[in-house]
């Protein structure tokens, strides 16, 4: 099952997703003549289904679009969302019925060329950073998905999110800080 001209996995992904420029005719003719690339396509399908499943589980920490949230709600997922103004805080929790947990933070993003998102512990230590998150300069808020799996097992805690931008010299500037006071409402004390 060898192939002299294997189709690139990314091209196969484009084909599977029916994206423009996916060279459909050539790919299909090749796939009807090549089991090796057919197997690669199956691997790409597995990857796509796996990512879809992860997204449905709400277990990825990432910035999401409104369309993503709309789609999740349309497919019957329960989205719990908290809004926090810059410098503000919110009392929050997560229940067993929730599927997706969103922290929506307000920010003036005009002129921001690059924005990093950091999660800060109660004692001020940066726990992790998402560099160069996708933002619109005209947007007034950012929707961040916290892992629902993580938060369902979490004890009551305070979590601070910080948005950072950079000037032309590369120096960091805080765009805003947002405090989430999470109260555990699920049974048990919670632990990681």
């Amino acid at each position, binding site marked *: 099952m060898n192939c002299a001209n294997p189709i*690139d*996995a*990314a*091209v196969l*992904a*484009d*084909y*599977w*997703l*029916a*994206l*423009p*420029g996916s060279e459909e005719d050539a790919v*299909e*003719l090749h*796939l*009807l*003549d090549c*089991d090796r690339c*057919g197997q690669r*396509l*199956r*691997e*790409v*399908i*597995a*990857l*796509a*289904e*796996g*990512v*879809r*499943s*992860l*997204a*449905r589980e709400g*277990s*990825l*920490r*990432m*910035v*999401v*679009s409104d*369309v*993503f949230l709309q*789609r999740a709600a349309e497919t019957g997922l329960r989205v719990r969302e908290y809004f926090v103004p810059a410098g503000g805080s919110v009392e929050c929790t997560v229940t067993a019925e929730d599927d997706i947990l969103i922290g929506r933070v307000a920010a003036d993003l005009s002129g921001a060329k690059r924005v990093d998102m950091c999660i800060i512990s109660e004692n001020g230590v940066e726990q992790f950073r*998402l*560099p*160069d*998150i*996708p933002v*619109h*300069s005209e947007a007034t808020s950012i929707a961040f998905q916290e892992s629902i799996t993580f938060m369902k097992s979490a004890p009551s805690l305070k979590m601070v999110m910080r948005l950072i931008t950079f000037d032309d010299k590369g120096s960091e500037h805080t765009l805003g800080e947002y405090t989430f006071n999470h109260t555990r409402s699920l049974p048990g004390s919670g632990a990681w």
Partner: protein
Amino acid sequence: MNLELNDAELVLQIGSGDHVAEAELFRRMAPRVRLYGLRHLRDESAAEDLTQMVLITTLEALRARRLREPEKLAGFVLGTCRMTVLDLRRGIQRKERILERFGADLVKPAPISIPNLDQDQLARCVQNLRERERTVIVMTFYDEQTGADVASFLRVSESNLRVIRHRAIHELRKCMEGAA
């Protein structure tokens, strides 16, 4: 049965009435046609129907020696796939008619085997992507958004988006293969 027969030889064998070659055609082409069906019909059952219809139509043509260039079997099957998908979408009920005529002769092809992935490892691999790559992958695979929609969200050109998407897919595959 010589499994090393190339497509052209297989076509000629079927034209001469070789039933073993017919079975080989089903074994060889069924998984490929089913993948085509999954891609275009997004439904395993419909893909299965398509596979049966395409292979029977192909078999009829080969038995009647209507394929003038035997080496172009893949092209012929592709054309048949396209016509059959159009028929299915138009709601033309050829399926029952075809199955009535040939049902008893059909070789039931094996189902498509999509590999099982380690979801925990995949989660780690997705989380390890750069933020933009992760966004692109999730928006594309989960939302099934068009390239234009994702490009608009990220404020990048569609060609740049394609580069990000392709890099992310390669990173994911590398990460998954590294863990295997």
